[in-house]
């Protein structure tokens, strides 16, 4: 058990707090509760559309989804209730994590954007180019300011893994636009 790591004081204020009736309420946690209820409701809705399976199927395809969806809705409701009573999560700590600062939503959004660009282009440009882009752009977002070196490392990694997979493991990663060049 993690008795040893449990903080004896409440964790430093994460974003989205508000004080209600003398209690600190983690308002963002209402968002998680709502998410659970929505997912649960969709799972139940999806189950109603399934219809009966094979006649000899003792556990119908909708049986498990009904249970899982219903429990998710209940869990979401309980979470909303205890949130209003001042329950707060112990956010995960780590070696490079500094919980005393506010969460940096901009960095996360930029990283997600880099990832979306990577996903959109990978079929066309291929792993060697998008992989290098993913590394260099992520490093930039995370605070590196040496463009040339970032791109050089990115290219080395992506081309290296391309040939590593191709030569070492015999798996051809789709080369995209560079088909025939690599």
């Amino acid at each position: 058990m993690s008795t040893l790591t449990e903080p004896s004081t409440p964790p430093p204020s994460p974003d989205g707090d508000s004080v209600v009736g003398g209690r600190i309420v983690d308002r963002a946690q209402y968002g998680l509760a709502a998410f659970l209820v929505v997912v649960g409701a969709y799972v139940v809705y999806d189950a109603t559309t399934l219809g009966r399976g094979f006649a000899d199927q003792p556990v119908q395809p909708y049986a498990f989804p009904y249970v899982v969806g219903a429990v998710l809705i209940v869990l979401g409701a309980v979470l909303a209730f205890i949130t209003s009573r001042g329950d707060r999560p112990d956010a995960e700590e780590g070696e490079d994590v500094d919980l005393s600062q506010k969460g940096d939503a901009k960095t996360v959004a930029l990283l997600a954007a880099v990832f979306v660009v990577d996903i959109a282009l990978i079929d066309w440009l291929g792993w060697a180019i998008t992989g290098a882009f993913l590394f260099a752009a992520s490093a930039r977002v995370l605070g590196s300011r040496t463009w040339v070196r970032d791109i050089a490392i990115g290219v080395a990694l992506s081309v290296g893994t391309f040939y590593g997979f191709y030569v070492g493991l015999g798996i051809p990663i789709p080369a995209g636009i560079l088909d025939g060049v690599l």
Partner: protein
Amino acid sequence: MDLNLLLDGFQTALTPTNLLFAVLGVMLGTAVGVLPGIGPAMTVALLLPVTYNVEPSSAIIMFAGIYYGGMYGGSTTSILLNTPGESSSVVTAIEGNKMAKAGRAAQALATAAIGSFVAGTIGTILLVLLAPSVADVVVKLGAPSYFAIMLLALFAVTAVLGTSKLRGFIALFLGLTIGLIGTSTGKARLTFGEPLLADGIDIVVVAVAIFAIGEALWVAAHLRRKPLEIIPVGRPWMDRQDWGRSWKPWLRGTALGFPFGALPAGGAEVPTFLSYITERKLSKHPEEFGKGAIEGVAGPEAANNASAAGTLVPLLAIGLPTTATAAVILLAMQSYGIQPGPQLMDNEPELVWGLLASLFVANTLLLVLNLPLAPVWARLLQTPRPYLYAGILFFASLGAYSVNFQAFDLALLLAFGLLGLAMRRFGLPVLPLIIGVILGPRLEAQLTEALAISGGKISTLWGEPVAVVVYVVIAVLIVGLFVNFVRNARQGAATAENKERIDA
């Protein structure tokens, strides 16, 4: 057990090619595991694709190397940075980092490495002795018993480990929801009409997303601006006194770790903590505890490794993963064409004994390679953070992409990565989710099989003695939880006046 089969296993594992793969695995596993923020489960998940398409026997031994290397890498960061990569090495960090600060980093790393070797070796021997007989018992169990055991594992992993039960169950049911996706029951469930979702979501993608992408995004949101202080290692060398004070804790730690690891609620947290308390009680130098006592590193580190060997008993004999690392190992074995379970020993003896022999070989190599290489690994800790986390994103997407070479898997990776980020923000444990994704569909399959055999009679579920015993255990756990809850609530009510915050 059959000694000849084990010797055959060694013959497979010790060919020059396979030995090379083992060395490569240990090096890769340690190099990745030693990076800050990467625990054993994440190391194994990230490096799993590397072993694809290598011949199965080579892949297994390489994987065994990665596994042991990743675990040792985790202890190295605990000792040098006071920053355990996962909960099982928390206790190692307590005394280990104090030793390091007192200039005894080398001895702490050495006692951790040798202790891991001793515990890993004894643990694997116990595994070799036990797994076949457990499998013999298990093979006679029917679907009702399996159903009950899986229910127990889900319940225990969620409710017994971790501080907030509610958050454990939230994670579990999110995992079960992910497990519903697909057409395994003959009907398309939660596929949104997307044919790529018909086969369900590849668990490797889920695991890599939750462990690696979630972690990288979480760290990105809270990146520490000042560099961490790292202590130079020096040459790992223990003097006579260090050996004298280490060997008993190694053995006691092993004795505590293995049985706990083999339980369905397995995990290294309880045995490492028990080992720490035991050593503090038995030590001739109790005054050193809290200031860097070598017993406090030797015992918990051995317990950690022995429990890791213990988790392989239910994994191999029942196909039941009880820790995050074991969950990834299960995926690895399935990708090598090994289906863990009671029939495994009879159907694929060469592969199983090859795996067990590989564990011995990898464990030995770890000791041989890592004692002299410790200073090199310590230097990896200084990787600039932007490169480290950009690199994690890079390798995580390579891992997910290499499963099917579909951009769709990368989109799933991002979606579940964001879920992993939210889980860390809201304190949701990762393990119940992963176990839920893996065991959910199998729970449904066992229930279906049990009811199909009984002709739909529900009473078949408690028709086997093992199932009844397991349900009694679950009932006892529920009663225990409830009693605890009531007691806490009463205490809470009594002290609510003075206390600002009450933990649910």
